[in-house]
């Protein structure tokens, strides 16, 4: 059984030096497609990626990562769309590079497809009504 998952790894400051990606490829035979990597204001490393491979390898890899202290989250929940704040202007639709935010026609309303979101965060400031939020902002 093959598996393909979009995930977010969050590395506590103590483990950021380790070559996790190299190990995922070498020890677990997984394919890695990195979407984005950064260090957030809390000095925590954050990596957004797509992992694919066989299901047993994938499960072993996730188990190993957790043992190393890596927090693993579903990429889908990283950016949230506050529909109450959205005025459906559509200004986001030309800024979003992955087509996650689109203006659906003929309804002329904005739709957000989480599965297409690559967490680039360009929408956060491009939305005049500030209807897009990150998990990080919401936690505060």
């Amino acid at each position: 059984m093959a598996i393909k998952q979009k995930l977010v790894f969050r590395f506590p400051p103590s483990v950021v030096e380790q070559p996790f990606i190299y190990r995922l490829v070498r020890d677990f035979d997984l394919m890695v497609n990195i979407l984005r990597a950064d260090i957030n204001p809390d000095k925590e490393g954050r990596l957004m990626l797509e992992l694919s491979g066989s299901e047993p390898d994938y499960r072993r890899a996730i188990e190993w990562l957790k043992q190393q202290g890596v927090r693993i989250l579903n990429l889908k929940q990283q950016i949230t769309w506050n529909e109450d704040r959205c005025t459906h202007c559509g200004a986001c639709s030309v800024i979003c590079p992955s087509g996650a935010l689109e203006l659906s026609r003929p309804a002329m309303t904005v739709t957000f497809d989480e599965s297409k979101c690559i967490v680039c965060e360009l929408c956060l400031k491009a939305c005049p009504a500030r209807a897009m939020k990150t998990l990080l902002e919401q936690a505060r």
Partner: protein
Amino acid sequence: MGIERTYEEINHKIRSGKAVILTAEEVLDLIAGEGAAGAAKKVDVVTTGTFGPMCSSGVFLNFGHPKPRIKMSEVYLNGVPAYAGIAAVDVYLGATALPPGDPRNRNHPGEFRYGGGHVIEELVAGEEIRLEAHSYGTDCYPLKKIETAFRLSEINEAVLYNPRNAYQNYNVAVNLGQKTIYTYMGILKPNLGNANYSSAGQLSPLLNDPLLKTIGMGTRIFLGGGVGYVTWHGTQHNPSVERGENGVPKTPAGTLAVAGDLKQMQRRWLRGLSMLGYGVTLQVGLGIPIPILNEEIMSYCAVRDEEIFAPVVDYSRVYPYREAGNLGLVSYAELRSGAVTIKNRQVPTASLSSYAGAREIARTLKEWISAGKFTLTRPAAPLPSVEAGIQLQALPQRNPDEGGF
């Protein structure tokens, strides 16, 4: 001789529940089937709507006096300065006002997280607003400083008074430059990366009455989710521009000044906005009913997005430096399709004005009228139209110390 109706006849039908009302979008199918003459016979009122960022907006507030009294000369609402150069406890809070400590564009593009538009939104939502006022003290108004909090229901008056709303048509903004620019028309990516527009097109109030034959001073309207009135022509009102055969202007033209009691408006239709790298503003919901007095009025409401054209303007150079020329005209049908052709290239489009919001406003106004809650007003005076010969001025730039007129 086609149908003729008076305001009185229309209002009589509204009160007796017999008026036929369609939105400016719904009426298009009827006109396609029966022509303007046929449609004019059947329809009494066409409703319009628009929901876009409108910077020339704000509220007049009267706080009532504290004890002892104060002549407020410097006023902040949630940290945002309001204009206090009028009577003792009257202020005007403008939509684009920023707190003195806001970093603006020092770290470009500035975020502009909070300002006048946001305060107005929170006011109308009934949230508590922090008020700080300073004064120099007089014999009749001794208090020199007050810090307090209030809600909209606790002050005497709050009147939304917008000097320029409901622009009749607008530019399509593009960027011919090499780097991203941040404008009141949104983020414009370099090398024609996107084209942003801001009009409800075929649903827009002034595009359905292009020569202002029914909309005038005193026209009752949907404003911010409540009832408001047209109070004057808007600032920069410019009816003398080039028009198509249908009377529709090909560039930004007419504007409206509008007012209404903030206390009966809704947060949903007054939204504080943050335009990256530009500033804050207010998104205003506005809708106007058009009385179908005759076939001619109906023929104006027949206008479709395919027949409304807007100029494409370069905001990297031409707009800011007042250079002449544009990149041609595009229709709102193309704009609303998601891409337009400019310089033989397909350019993705986005709107700053919410078409879905405009549609909902036109429908809401239709419901109000259908329910007999909202009747139409004959203007107390017309607004200046083409025959007024208005010419827009540029600001004189001369040495103020010379001259001696």
